[in-house]
């Protein structure tokens, strides 16, 4: 009987993020009468997609034992580059070239991958700590974003019919009543889950994060695996750069400031271990929802921005405390049972 109880506690602890999510939704729907409306849920989903897509990339990085602080700045930089390409085109010499929107999207995704690749190369080949490397690229990208327009905003990202570059705003619009970003989030989540669970590369991410020395001895090219994690992270950040710009109908150089922290928080809330080696995509998705629901729910209840930050911080720490408690409890229970049986 007692064993059953313990197992129940364990199941509850393991599904805790999901339970917290449900409790939060129930709480906010009582606290604010308009929370459970279609409009609100659409808004929440729109915001969740922003953190969520960043968190997908972050999950791969953290699973390999790294961290990527540059994603927020990549969001800003990609937005500025895309906005600039639409409004001003690409000028060389006396010619100005305008790209179509699909071409711009592909180009921007390449920019994101390139920044991720640079992060990965510096971290693995030059042996600089991930924290320092991505802190550096975070500043550099933010600086470049400001440099592109001298700190000004690109306001007309709608494009011009005559130039054939109309259409980026579609990424910020609703399709069949659901924000476009949510579709992107869903597709990327699906791809990420397949990559992590169903391909050899997915195993390699877990192996490198779990025991890098063994991974190397197994013939896995751990440097390449890590570089890929940062490329994925940059790729995801580029998507958010585009979606965010489209949603705002403008490209602002300060966009995405601090969003890397939301992504890390969502990933950790989702059960990915900061020491690497374990984590799931579904966990990260739930984590992103928790962050999104807390943020929007508190705003709707009229909680001040200052208090929001305090509560968000407390929730993150609490989540990790519960995570550690669960592990300790599990180990302790097993040992105690054995000591008693002696």
């Amino acid at each position: 009987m007692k064993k059953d109880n313990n197992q129940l506690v364990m199941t509850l602890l393991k599904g805790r993020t999901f339970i917290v999510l449900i409790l939060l939704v129930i709480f906010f729907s009582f606290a604010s009468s308009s929370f459970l409306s279609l409009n609100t849920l659409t808004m929440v989903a729109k915001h969740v997609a922003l953190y969520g897509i960043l968190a997908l990339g972050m999950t791969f990085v953290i699973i390999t034992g790294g961290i990527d602080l540059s994603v927020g700045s990549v969001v800003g930089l990609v937005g500025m580059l895309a906005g600039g390409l639409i409004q001003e085109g690409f000028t060389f010499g006396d010619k100005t070239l305008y790209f179509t929107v699909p071409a711009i999207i592909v180009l921007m995704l390449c920019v994101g991958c390139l920044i991720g690749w640079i992060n990965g190369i510096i971290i693995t080949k030059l042996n600089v700590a991930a924290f320092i490397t991505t802190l550096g690229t975070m500043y550099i990208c933010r600086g470049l974003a400001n440099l592109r327009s001298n700190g000004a905003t690109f306001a007309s990202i709608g494009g011009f019919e005559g130039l054939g570059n109309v259409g980026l705003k579609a990424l910020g619009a609703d399709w069949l009543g659901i924000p476009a970003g949510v579709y992107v989030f869903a597709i990327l989540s699906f791809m990420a889950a397949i990559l992590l669970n169903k391909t050899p590369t997915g195993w390699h991410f877990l192996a490198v994060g779990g025991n890098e020395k063994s991974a190397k001895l197994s013939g896995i090219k751990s440097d390449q695996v890590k570089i890929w994690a940062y490329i994925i992270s940059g790729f995801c950040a580029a998507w958010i750069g585009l979606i965010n710009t489209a949603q705002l109908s403008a490209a602002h150089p300060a966009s995405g400031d601090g969003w890397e922290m939301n992504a890390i928080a969502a990933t950790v809330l989702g059960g990915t271990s900061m020491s690497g080696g374990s984590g799931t995509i579904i966990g990260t998705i739930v984590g992103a929802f928790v962050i999104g629901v807390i943020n929007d729910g508190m705003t709707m209840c009229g909680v001040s921005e200052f208090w929001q930050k305090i509560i968000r911080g407390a929730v993150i720490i609490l989540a990790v405390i519960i995570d550690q408690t669960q592990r300790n409890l599990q180990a302790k229970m097993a040992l105690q049972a054995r000591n008693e049986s002696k």
Partner: protein
Amino acid sequence: MFDDPNVVLHCEKIDKIYPGTKALDQVSFDLLKGKVNVLIGENGAGKSTLMKMIAGIEQPSAGKMYMDGEEVYFKDTNAARARGIGIIHQELSLFQNLTVYQNIFMNHEKTKGFFLDDAQHIEGAKKILKRLEHEIPPDTLVGDLRVGQQQMVEIARNLVEDDLRVLIMDEPTSSLSAAEVKVLFKIMRELLEQGLSIVYISHRLEEIMEIGDHVTILRDGKYVADADIKDITLEWIVENMVGKNTQYHRFTRSIDLDKSEKILEVKNLSLPKTGGGWLLDSVNMYLKKGEVLGIYGLLGAGRSEVFECLMGMRPEHSGEVIYNGKHMKIGTISDQLNAGFAIVPEDRQRQGLVQSLDICKNASLASLSDFTTGFLMNYPAEEKAVDEEIKELHIKVADKHLPILSLSGGNQQKVVIAKGLMTKPTVLLMDEPSRGIDIGAKTEVFEIIHEFSERGLSIIVISSELKEIMAIADRIYVLSNGKCTAELSGSTITEDNLVHASYAGLGTGKSAA
């Protein structure tokens, strides 16, 4: 060109130089086809290093390797694997965070199109594990397995590919039970029949006599001898392995230990192992004032764990500790230091020293609070105390503010001992105090142990070297598989008794010849 049909792989005058040491010195080695090639030698003889060259984990500094009549060079493990060379590592190199089948097929994944074929993985893992007579469910997390089971998974990993020609096994039995060893030997014989060649490294001499075909002995990085097992005896192996000059002078004691009171007593000390089994299983021992107590046992017998319990590093232990006649509640490490315990840990580089600090700071690290004025460090007092200790232990230092790594291994070890002694301990715990230091320094360390015990310090020494522990200890407990299997003193301290007891807990009932 080297070409001999009976030799799978030939090493020609291999050198391996690490900063400061020459791990291999002009070693030539023939890996015979379809045989169990045994490599033996004491710790640090260069066995594992040589195998790392062959498996492509490290590359020789000089020398050549030949296979199939042509020179080969393995830049990494993949290159060696492509030639059919697999290795089972001494330290398990598994992924604790992944499942059994993921571990087995890591980097040998089976796919359907782009996707993993887990059904095939699970099927394949089951088949291999069945062959190994260990039907562990393939979706178990490796971190949840017993060490012996993990060892089997490690072996299974190497059997995944069919093109294996050479299997290197670096002490595969050190964590296996007797039944598991039997299964392993059976598998090895099967593999030989299939034309595989095996390199086998082990410290268990009686195992070597049972399974080995050809033996090669290394000592201090040099080749010593090789012979077919059928032509030789255990005595021959031991003689070549240890050399002739390892007799230590036995110290005579002036203290009458019979009249000395018990300072420390441990009752029913047990320590559970994660994943099942016991690291320590109801161990009882006592220590008298001024006594040098030895703890002997094979690797993994639970020797270091006794110290870890006493130093407060294993709060999950159970049992009673009586210290100075009173029941003692084991606290944190600093509580234990304050209570009069001090430890000289086994791994000097990782546990004993802080490499970035100088000699003086390393020595005073555990007793810094003794050298303060108010909140601030009193450097003159600290340096004076360190100077005294350096003089007393005859540590050869030009300047105590030099980096710790500028010292020889023996002098580094003395600094670690000085650190322990500077806490003014009542009980000093020394874990393999003579490991990795030269013979002169060993003798000096033994003299230090003797001298301080004569002054009334109670010392427990762990050693895996028979001759050493026989020379320094007044009384010896033998641990085997977490159990205390013998208590020897005076004339009962003999090599036979020690060796016999060290196997007694494994349940084989065999002693080394």
